[in-house]
């Protein structure tokens, strides 16, 4: 590592020549396709990822609307839906199997194509290379492939909406053998399920290529003086996330390949013998459903952190800029990130407490699961401590950071219950779990994405977003998500089972009114997101022209033009003298901050 940190700068004719050659070789491309479609420019690719995520999140949100409407009013016809799926929604009324399709697609789209692409691949691609002072990613071609492979995966997934008996219905966890045996298990488990597995396999490839780039770029392409200790916290988070992703997706990929083989090639990796579905004895034998669960959750739990850690980084980058105070305990914070990344690989079993696993191992899995809350708590306290006694600037970005902290606390604490096998015995598979993970990985990382958007939009598009719209967007969303997901914890305590298309059991019927409340809240909160869309599209064209450094932040992206030129620094190679945390100091020109590349000797604390 250290040798990579400080490199002798033996500049010389040879070098300058080669650099000239580079410039010639890497001038901005002129053709339309290379500029906007198959671009090698990390900034374009980052925006492409974010646009993909935007499409995906819209789809996923509409799916959740349909689900919520069905749960509240099961017989309600939805006009036009029968056009999309004549089978699933005859006369526009969602059938139970179609509900499960919507649920599976919602989960898959949100987890893979939104929470993984937007905060990690999207912002990471655009910002990370600039923050380390590089002209681009280490492997631009892989970077481009990474995006287009991911886009392909998305198309394959959506295609399953148009196959005869609809998309997969086995949930985003696709538990075998339900996901493996094929059509005898019911509608959605024929071609739809195969497309699901293929799509996820492709997605893994895309993310592996992406992670590879992030790691190589962070390690090798840091500009002079950008020691690891001086990396901005967002880059730290993206770097650790890509390490986690590398391990996680390289395990999910094999799992998907084996699943596909079970489905199409007649192998029996996950399918035991003697299964009788729809009066038909299945031809498989000897497979292990638990094997799928192990492989899936070995990926699945770290995936939760892949979704949330970039949010950590974004918040820790934005909060200091908005509080005009250095982040409290930066080294501790990074230590926590590393600890979480490490622990995230020792806890997957807590998803399988009730899978008939050896009870002893259940206890063994529960310990690290509870321990991982310690670094999480520390980071939360660090944010709160950073806010203490600060000069908080209430921009939309900072509001979403505050919201992030609040919902992360709420969602994180409900994890205490599920981490204990004894309580999980009661709550497992109820809405308590749904409320928990939507808060802690769904809404929290969503708020991280929003904060990042409002913060970096000026850099990405050269125009400011509208703050008034932004604030309305925050306040309504903030209250909205609490109205949606807090009640789910209550439902769970009352034993309301998740993944039900309707609540026909005697003891669940009384809970329907609360579900109606949640549905109304969900429709409202979803509608509120229109403010965000309007703001996005309006500001891209009409927003006020953004200065280089609108937030008076310290990291390198704020030393570039808004938006940055093709090679980010216009041939200049910034030299870093300071960490990203120099806020609330006596800087030059009466500034209260010092930028990372500003030459002045280390500033004095104010």
């Amino acid at each position, binding site marked *: 590592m250290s040798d990579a940190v400080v490199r002798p700068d033996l500049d010389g004719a040879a070098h300058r020549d080669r650099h000239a050659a580079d410039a010639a070789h890497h001038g901005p491309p002129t053709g339309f396709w290379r500029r906007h479609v198959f671009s090698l420019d990390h900034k374009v690719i980052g925006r492409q990822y974010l646009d993909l995520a935007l499409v995906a999140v819209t789809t996923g949100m509409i799916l959740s609307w349909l689900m919520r409407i069905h749960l509240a009013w099961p017989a309600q016809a939805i006009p036009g839906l029968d056009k999309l799926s004549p089978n699933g929604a005859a006369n526009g009324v969602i*059938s139970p199997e179609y509900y499960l399709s919507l649920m599976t697609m919602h989960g898959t789209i949100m987890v893979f194509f939104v929470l993984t692409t937007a905060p990690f691949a999207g912002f990471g691609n655009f910002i990370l290379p600039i923050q380390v002072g590089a002209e681009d990613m280490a492997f631009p071609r892989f970077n481009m492939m990474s995006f287009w492979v991911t886009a392909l995966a998305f198309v394959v997934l959506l295609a399953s909406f148009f196959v005869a008996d609809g998309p997969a219905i086995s949930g985003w966890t696709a538990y075998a053998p339900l996901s493996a045996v094929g059509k005898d298990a*019911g509608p959605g488990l024929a071609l739809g399920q195969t497309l699901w597995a293929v799509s996820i396999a492709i997605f893994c490839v895309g993310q592996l290529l992406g992670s590879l780039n992030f790691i190589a770029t962070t390690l090798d392409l840091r500009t002079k003086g950008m020691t690891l200790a001086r990396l901005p916290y967002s880059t730290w988070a993206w770097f650790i996330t890509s390490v986690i992703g590398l391990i996680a997706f390289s395990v999910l990929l094999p799992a998907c390949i084996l699943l596909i083989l079970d489905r199409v090639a007649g192998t029996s990796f996950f399918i035991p013998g003697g299964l009788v579905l*729809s009066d038909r004895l299945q031809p498989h034998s000897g497979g292990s459903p638990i094997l799928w669960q192990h492989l899936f959750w070995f990926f699945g739990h770290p995936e939760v952190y892949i979704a949330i850690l970039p949010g950590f980084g974004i918040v820790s980058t934005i909060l200091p800029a908005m509080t005009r105070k250095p982040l409290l305990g930066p080294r501790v914070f990074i230590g926590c990130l590393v600890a979480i990344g490490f622990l995230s690989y020792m806890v997957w079993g807590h998803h399988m407490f009730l899978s008939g696993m050896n009870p002893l191992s259940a206890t063994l899995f529960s310990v690290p699961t509870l321990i991982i809350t310690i670094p999480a708590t520390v980071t939360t306290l660090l944010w709160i401590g950073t806010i203490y006694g600060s000069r908080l600037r209430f921009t939309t970005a900072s509001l979403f950071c505050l919201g992030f902290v609040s919902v992360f606390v709420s969602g994180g604490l409900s994890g205490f219950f599920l981490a204990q096998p004894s309580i999980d015995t009661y709550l497992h598979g109820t809405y308590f779990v749904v409320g928990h993970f939507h808060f802690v990985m769904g809404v929290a990382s969503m708020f991280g994405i929003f904060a990042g958007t409002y913060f970096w939009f000026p850099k990405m598009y050269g125009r400011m977003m509208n703050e008034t719209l932004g604030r309305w967007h925050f306040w309504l969303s903030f209250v909205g998500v609490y109205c949606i997901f807090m009640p789910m914890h209550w439902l769970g305590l009352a034993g309301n089972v998740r993944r039900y298309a309707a609540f*026909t059991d005697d003891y669940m019927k009384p809970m329907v009114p609360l579900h109606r409340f949640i549905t109304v809240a969900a429709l409202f909160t979803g509608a509120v997101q229109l403010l965000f869309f309007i703001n996005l599209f309006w500001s891209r064209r009409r927003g006020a022209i953004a200065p280089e450094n609108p937030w008076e932040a310290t990291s390198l992206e704020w030393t570039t033009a808004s938006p940055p030129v093709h090679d980010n620094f216009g041939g200049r190679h910034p030299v870093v003298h300071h960490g990203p945390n120099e806020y609330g100091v006596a800087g030059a020109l009466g500034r209260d901050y010092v930028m990372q590349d500003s030459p002045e000797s280390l500033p004095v604390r104010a």
Partner: protein
Amino acid sequence: MHTKHIASLTLIAAAAVVTTGALRHPGPRAGSISGTVTYTGTMPKMKVIDMAKEPSCAAQHKSPVMTESAVAGPNNSLEDVVVYISAGDQGSAPATTAVRYDQRGCQYVPHVALVQVDQPVEIYNDDKTSHNIHPLAKTNAEWNKSQPPGAPPLKETFGKAEFIPVKCNIHPWMHGYFAVLNTSHATQSGEDGSFSLKGLPPGKYTVTAWHERFGTQSQEVTVGSGDTPKVNFTFKATPY
């Protein structure tokens, strides 16, 4: 398709024969085949269906509901046997009126539905619970759709002749059959095991009887003008 054409052609032919014949002497009168279906050996014991899972259905039945895979009548008669013309059919008009198939009290009514190829089947859910209809077809296309309470009837057709088992996964005891046949000359044996196939023009026929557990039997019958030949079928019953 193709069978339809043949059918219509033969119809025309038959019509022609009749008219020309009518000029000379009164034409041939249609005959009918009737008989009874009985069994030998020990019948399997029908079991009581436990509907505890679905109170709304259990409540609809005063007396305990029995399985229907082999139903015996007085003096060894066998019920629900499908008897049909498997060969020699001189033309069946394609049926247009829909066959009604009910899910009532978590049972299929009728247990076996006689359906002609391409004849619409309307499946109703009369219960207060969800059903899923899953015809385990082999030559026809297999499908599996759920039908929540109050949902409109499903309208389906089957393009090929086949005895299709129908099941409901939500209520595993629910089993029935769609007997999809190429002919309109088909019937089922009644409680006394009797059946009769009417309106058969003179000719040589193969009559086939099908039972979901005991298999199929066929007999050659020749029907003269206005004849009413008797044909009896006897199945060998096994307890398990």
